[in-house]
């Protein structure tokens, strides 16, 4: 598996569903909704993420790993045993579908870092991030594509329907779901390149090409992130990890970094807010996501939708009772929720932040 190819470019459709009361929904909904937007992809990538997926092992990191060959699996598992307590190992269940003739080996591991590995104030999350960076850049043929707790990602090269069928998505339940159909333009499609893209329990689905990728990447590298996959989406995941988990910004403030308000609008703010916004832009200008995007990111506490600051990509949000839907197209929401209480298009750069109720 060669990760070091040209930067990935892709168009896409995306869907997110969250039940604020943590009522779990079956995977058939997200599948049905996403399939309606089949034409936003080109059959070369689709995927799903779900939260609330593994309630019985919710305090373990669920590592989903794909392998090119048994050697890479052996290398990874050796590495894993040296560094983690492994609670459970299993193959990710799949079902044959016509379009998928070759797939990587797909395994999942429920693990916790060995206590003794956490030196120098390192948290378990830090350790897992380091593992993901290390494995994906150093163990040839092994790729960790999901590393959160009580959540998981399923993705590969095909269209949404067949990826859903292949991974038996309808057999899973979750209180947050995201889905993605992909239109890569320059690669034959690589399983790891499909979305959602994750790190810990951040999962990103994303539409559009981030034109600022070059500097976003170099900025993150300064903070120890290894950007091995050359996809925009990887940048988003690591930026959120840095801003929110490492630097302690809250989600709405982090969104002001990703889609910074224009200077002319900052000038109109009152002094205190102007200072804060100016400082944010000065400090995190290199993390500004520039160019067209709409993206959804799931995390352990909720779901966020946001698009770029001049709204070059679509995003529609709808609510029905405790459920909030976010999508590239309203029709894909209406496919599973014919009569929403409310449906609207958020303004450019204005995040829609939905949090789970405790």
């Amino acid at each position, binding site marked *: 598996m060669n990760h070091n190819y040209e930067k990935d470019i892709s168009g896409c459709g995306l869907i997110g569903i969250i039940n604020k009361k943590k009522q779990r929904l079956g995977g058939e909904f997200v599948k049905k909704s996403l399939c309606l937007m089949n034409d936003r992809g080109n059959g070369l990538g689709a995927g799903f993420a779900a939260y609330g997926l593994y309630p019985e092992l919710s305090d373990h990191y669920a590592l989903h790993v794909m392998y090119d060959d048994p050697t890479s699996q052996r290398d990874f598992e050796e590495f894993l045993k040296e560094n983690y307590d492994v609670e459970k190992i299993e193959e990710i269940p799949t079902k044959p579908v016509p379009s998928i003739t070759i797939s990587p080996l797909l395994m999942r591991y429920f693990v916790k870092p060995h206590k003794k590995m956490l030196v120098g104030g390192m948290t378990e999350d830090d350790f897992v991030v380091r593992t993901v960076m290390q494995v994906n850049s150093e163990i040839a043929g092994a790729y960790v594509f999901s590393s959160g707790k009580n959540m998981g990602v399923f993705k590969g090269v095909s269209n949404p329907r067949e990826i859903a069928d292949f991974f038996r998505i309808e057999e899973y339940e979750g209180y947050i779901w995201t889905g993605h159909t992909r239109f890569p333009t320059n690669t034959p499609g690589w399983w790891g390149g499909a979305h959602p893209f994750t790190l810990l329990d951040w999962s990103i689905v994303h539409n559009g090409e981030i034109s600022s990728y070059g500097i976003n990447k170099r900025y993150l590298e300064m903070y120890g992130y290894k950007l091995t996959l050359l996809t925009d989406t990887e940048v988003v995941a690591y930026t959120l990890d840095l801003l929110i988990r490492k630097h302690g910004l809250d989600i709405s403030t982090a969104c002001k970094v990703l889609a*910074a308000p224009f200077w002319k609008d900052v000038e109109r703010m009152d002094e*205190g807010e102007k200072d804060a916004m100016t400082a944010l832009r000065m400090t995190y200008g290199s993390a500004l996501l520039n160019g067209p995007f709409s993206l959804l990111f799931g995390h352990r506490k909720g779901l966020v939708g946001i698009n770029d600051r001049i709204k070059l990509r679509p995003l529609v949000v709808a609510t029905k009772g405790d459920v909030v839907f976010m999508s590239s197209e309203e029709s894909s929401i209406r496919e599973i929720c014919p009569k929403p209480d409310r449906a609207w298009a958020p303004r450019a750069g204005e995040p829609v932040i939905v949090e789970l109720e405790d």
Partner: protein
Amino acid sequence: MFNSLAPPEYLATIDTDKCIRCKRCIQNCGWSTYSWGGDRVLIETTKCVKCLRCYHYCPVEAIDILDNATRFKSNANWSYMNIRNIKRQAETGGMPITGMGSDLPYPVLFDHLLLDACQVTNPSIDPLREPMELRTYLGKKPSKLEVEKTPDGKLKLKTEMPPQLKLELPFTFSPMSFGSISLNAQKVLAMAAKECGIVMNTGEGGLHEDLLPYKDHIMVQVASGRFGVNPDYLNAGVACEIKIGQGAKPGIGGHLPGEKIPLQVAKTRMIPVGTDALSPAPQHDIYSIEDLRQLIYAIKEATNYKPVSIKIATVHNVAPIVSGIVRAGADIVYLDGFRGGTGAAPNIIRDHLGIPIEHALAAVDDRLRQEGIRNEASIIAAGGIRSSADAAKAIALGADAVAMGTAALVTMGCTVCGKCYTGNCSWGITTQRPELTVRLDPEIFAERLINLIRAWSHELQEILGALGVNAIESLRGSRERLRGVGLDEQTLDILGVKPAGR
């Protein structure tokens, strides 16, 4: 007639049929190339520097300045300047000196880099109609920020921000002192800086009181000669710069001859009229990096912590040097590349010491990122920025802003003749002779400089638009948007740029 065995470089010629004997050429030439012969204009062509002042002011287009065809036999190895300099050295025992940046044909990497543009997968942005932000803040940035929310949900900053220099555009003017250039030339820079929301730099010659109305757009410079430096001076501008070196003459000091020190220059520099103004190469309170730190903080203490810039020439070890400068507390590092301009430098130094800005910038930006301190200081790139394309490429390589010196002078009439050191500039730029400086009307030429800055800004916005981004931050350091053409693998590696086609 020739007092030297080096034949003149140019032949000034007047078509006597066309000439109407108006004598404007005689009045205009600062080098006394022309004189009146009773019935016609006499020409002393050895004095001609091809500044084209006479050519532009001849009402009948009678003047032609030709390259002297009978210089020496052409020789690819022994150039005119090689032979000419030997002859001059033999005749005088002196070092040939020159003005402006090196004119030798070293490869210019900017000319081997191409910028990206969007097609289909991401849209280009129309900069004429959509927002396109060029604002740049120079200074130390924290690596992370603490903010809190007020009860009404507004953001409130908790981190104390280091001082910043605000530029509406990612441009500054290079330091050029009063003395090396005229006060009118400095006024042009100051007026344009104010109008464009950027800064000019006093250079090391002190701050003339006429510039005080522009102080919010002035960076004051402290060099080894300490000309005109006192607490008022340090506090007069928005930032202070310590000059360590200059791209055109790294490791070499300055020497402003007494002839260029009339009363106003003397007063501004706080030295006696007519004495030579000597700036030794090193600052004699800086023999090591910890000494630099001491001076930086001495200035910060004196100015209640205004941003401090350190200007250095880009030399071979520029990356670790800048790392040290940043760790010593600089807020801004001004990198002056090998091709940077000068009012006077020995040819041998200008043409053979240092490294180009492109290599230096790439190496410095990489080094600071590797050390995790790129946020600790901003970088100004200088030394051969000839167009907005050079500016864009420098920014993509990692500069926060670029400085323009020669380009700004060209708007004032400069033709890059390179005779700045003579003090005879016919355009009134690098001279203190009042009959010459009066030619440079600050109002008129500020307008031209403003035009240039606006045009470059528009061009920069068009470039950003084509790149599909609407903020300069998204180009800064984004080497992914550059491709090399005709560069070897190692150079590409140093620049961190892929070859075109990859």
